């Protein structure tokens, strides 16, 4: 426990709100360092996480996180102090060894990849636990502070640590920016990338190496157990918000930064609680918000779209029924409400509501019990009818469905055929039937 703790420890007497304010004023040295560290890690994890998630390597991130523990302990044992350089080297070496081992076991046995990763993850962690508990049982290792690497303690980040974290982050971000196009291509279409001569395996190893570095940066702040959350959750959140790779990276970094700061604040509040779990909870909340409310892929937005589509379909079906019930040679002359109700086989009240909706749309006019199509309504009704017939013809001609099987499909599709497709179908129709 360094001097930084005392600055905040005396804040336990003040109210929660004043502690929050104090945090966000960034006056405390400890807060400044911790925030800087958190920002660095948010940038590197957010960026790399996008590629990890797209390549379905999420479990690998988890494995590497747990696998650094033995390396951290060994690094500590070099000078029996938390020397950031050695801890970093140890962690990186451990992560790279684990990643090599996963590949090796995979190539030479018939175990499935998820079992191999789980085994390496927990095996390395087991060895790390042995080292950790041995160190802690020695008098010199009792105050090692190594246990903070389990769940993270951002307030224990020293300025020296910041230098290393900064350098590594720089390396990560520059590599990603330099190889951005290649990394994106190999994430989406490996076959094509190989065909045009990109070093696909080399890029894969590069990504693994950078992930190891990102993991090493993160363990101080969020701990080995939860580091995979820093990689996966912001990227998944961004995935739900956008289709463009650039924006995905930006959004992921933004989420990571926001969650990191909020989590940091929560863990600073009056007690020395580990940072990792709070950051992860903040990430989870942001993810849930995106899952529900993302304008494109959020559950709410999708439900609204579905509802609108259903309403549109119902309206257009209503329009068609008016059109079909009107006299064939003079459709604009309209039809009586009772006839309409009978034709639609529903309650009179429902017909009235439907007609009112059509009138609101400007497709029909209603006078007493008589409903007549407007010009606009007539045009749209004819379009629907034509789409229906076109699709029916397509199904009969090209798909070779028997004539009595085409009705339901055509009834569904008439509402969603787009003008381009309609033109193409018409051209085909002319070709076939003159």
């Amino acid at each position: 426990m360094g001097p930084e703790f005392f600055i905040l420890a005396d804040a336990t007497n003040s109210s929660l709100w004043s502690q929050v304010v104090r945090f966000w004023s960034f006056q405390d040295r400890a807060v400044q360092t911790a925030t800087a560290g958190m920002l660095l890690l948010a940038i590197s994890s957010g960026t790399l996480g996008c590629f990890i998630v797209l390549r379905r390597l999420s479990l690998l991130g988890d494995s590497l996180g747990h696998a650094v523990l033995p390396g951290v302990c060994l690094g500590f044992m070099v000078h029996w102090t938390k020397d950031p350089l050695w801890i970093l080297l140890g962690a990186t070496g451990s992560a790279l060894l684990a990643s090599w081992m996963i590949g090796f076991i995979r190539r030479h046995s018939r175990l499935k990849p998820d079992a191999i990763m789980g085994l390496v993850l927990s095996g390395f962690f087991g060895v790390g636990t042995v080292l950790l508990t041995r160190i802690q049982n020695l008098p010199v290792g009792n105050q090692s502070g190594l246990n903070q690497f389990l769940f993270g303690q951002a307030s224990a980040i020293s300025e020296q640590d910041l230098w290393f974290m900064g350098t590594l982050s720089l390396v990560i971000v520059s590599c990603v920016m330099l190889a951005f196009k290649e990394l994106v291509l190999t994430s989406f279409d490996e076959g094509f990338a190989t065909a045009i001569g990109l070093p696909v395996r080399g890029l894969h190893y590069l990504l693994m190496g950078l992930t190891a570095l990102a993991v090493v940066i993160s363990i101080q702040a969020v701990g080995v157990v939860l580091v995979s959350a820093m990689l996966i959750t912001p990227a998944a959140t961004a995935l739900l918000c956008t289709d463009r790779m650039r924006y995905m990276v930006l959004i992921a970094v933004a989420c990571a930064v926001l969650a990191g700061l909020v989590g940091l604040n929560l863990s600073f509040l009056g007690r020395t609680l580990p940072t990792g779990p709070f950051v992860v909870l903040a990430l989870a909340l942001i993810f849930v918000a995106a899952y529900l409310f993302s304008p494109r892929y959020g559950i709410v937005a999708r439900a609204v779209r579905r509802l609108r589509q259903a309403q549109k379909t119902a309206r257009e079906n209503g329009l068609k029924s008016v059109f079909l019930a009107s006299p064939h040679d003079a459709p604009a002359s309209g039809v009586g409400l009772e006839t309409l109700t009978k034709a639609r086989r529903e309650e009179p009240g429902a017909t009235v509501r439907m007609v009112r909706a059509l009138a609101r749309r400007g497709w029909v006019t209603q006078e007493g019990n008589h409903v007549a199509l407007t010009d606009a309504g007539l045009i749209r009704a004819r379009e629907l009818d034509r789409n229906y017939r076109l699709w029916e013809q397509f199904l009969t001609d090209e798909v070779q469905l028997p004539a009595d099987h085409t009705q339901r499909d055509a009834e569904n599709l008439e509402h969603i055929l787009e003008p381009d497709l309609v033109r193409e179908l018409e051209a085909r129709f002319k070709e076939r039937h003159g």
Partner: protein
Amino acid sequence: MADGIPFIPPFDFHEHVVARWTGIEAHDTFCTVLMGALVAIACGWIGCYLILQGMALLGDAISHTVLLGIVVAFLWTGQVAGWATFIGAAVTGMLTALLVEGLHSTSRVKEDAAIGIVFTSLFALGVVLLGVFAGSAHIDTQHVLYGNLELVALGESVQVAGTTVPIAVCQMAVIAAVLMGLIVAFYKELLVVSFDPQLAVSLGLRTWLIRYGMMAVLSLTVVGAFSSVGAVLVVAMLIAPAATAYLLTRRLPMMFLISAAVGVVSSLIGYHIAYWLSVSAAGAMVSVACTLFGAAFFFAPEQGLVAAALRRLRLRMRMHQENILRHLLKPGATTEGAERLAGALGISRLAARWGVASLQRRGWVAAVAGNGAALELTSRGRNQAERLDRAHRLWETYLVQQVGLASDHVHPAAEQVEHLLSEQLFENVDDVLGHPTIDPHGSPIPRSLIADRGPGTFTLSKLRVGDRARVVGLQDAPQGLVAALTEPDHSATEVVELGLTLGQELTVVERFSEPASWRVSLSSGEFRDISHRLADVVLVQLAP
């Protein structure tokens, strides 16, 4: 090393092993090792199914999220290891599976990311609740990860059959027994679901029920093991014994047995190592289990790395020997010995010397009398060499005739294939090709030495121009039952009509190809043309 205390203390067998099992501490030692063994056995058995069904990742997730269930149960009821804990765990386990399924089936997030998000979030929630509200639960965040096996023996105990047994051990024993019972009761269903899920669905098994049932049982096992090995190391106990067994056997019952054995051994050795080094017992157990896995990975008799390397080595040796044999067939190839062979075949001198020595041992090659270093084939060796030569040339013919490769492209492929396929297969190739006598380069193909029924009896199709033979019988034409009933085989009648009666002597005078046929002259001087189909049926013996 540090402050005069060595990092690795000296190992004293008596103090660290024997003394644990004698005296007053024996009971505690026994309880601790027993707990470890029960945890390992139960986890190992479930782990077998996790590995087979590819659900190790979900198992990893659930073992983390049960912490949330445990903490919530504690906050609700104050119990740390009571019935509420187990219910809480089972609920969280199934909740995890449901959330993962819900997440990845309703959004663009793929399954692996969904698992990662769900389990880290729930686990983080558990840790936060633990740290903020549950300070009195005697669960510290560190031990959440790797447990505290050593304390199990000191926990609350009950009297069972005259001895005091810690409650945790009883609970684990019950869990292990229930697990064994479920496995036995549902053995067939679990078998089908694990190895052929689609068959299971088509048989009407409710795979979703079995799957969620497994999640629930997994959660219960993890909770039982929680206080001993923690959330992260339990994953090792789920996977390592099962993975070791997977590499050592291909039979499921054996897999259960081996994983249980690995578990017991890990617990025993791990406990002693932990006592000696003053480290976490769970960590030591996991390290031992992983070492055993490593041993199996390298030394398993069938699937191990060493065994595979040996197989490859043996194959290469055999190939070298066979190449030497074929090389010695070439005219004027009695060579100056192994060195020249090495050069000619492009292999190392050591490989050549080894190959020659093996061939000499088998009596296929001998030193030329009078010329010390030179080698020649014995008559048995010549037979062997000609078999290989035949295989090589048949394959070249096949590649050119049937596959359509150019004749200058086929040599390397045939060099490889001649070693790998069985002789019977080459006989089939020969038949498909119409029993050719010349290869694509114009060299003769050695004749087949395989008898068809009894020594010295061959089908007519194996005869070459100039052969004299006597008809001795008919080969049963292979024919399915349906064909036999609907299209009865008339070969016998046709053969007799041709004049090829039993004992008939004939000489092959000409061979045709496309379609393959044999022209024979009978003892009466008449000529007959025999089709491929009939030639495959007539059995002859060569005249001496």
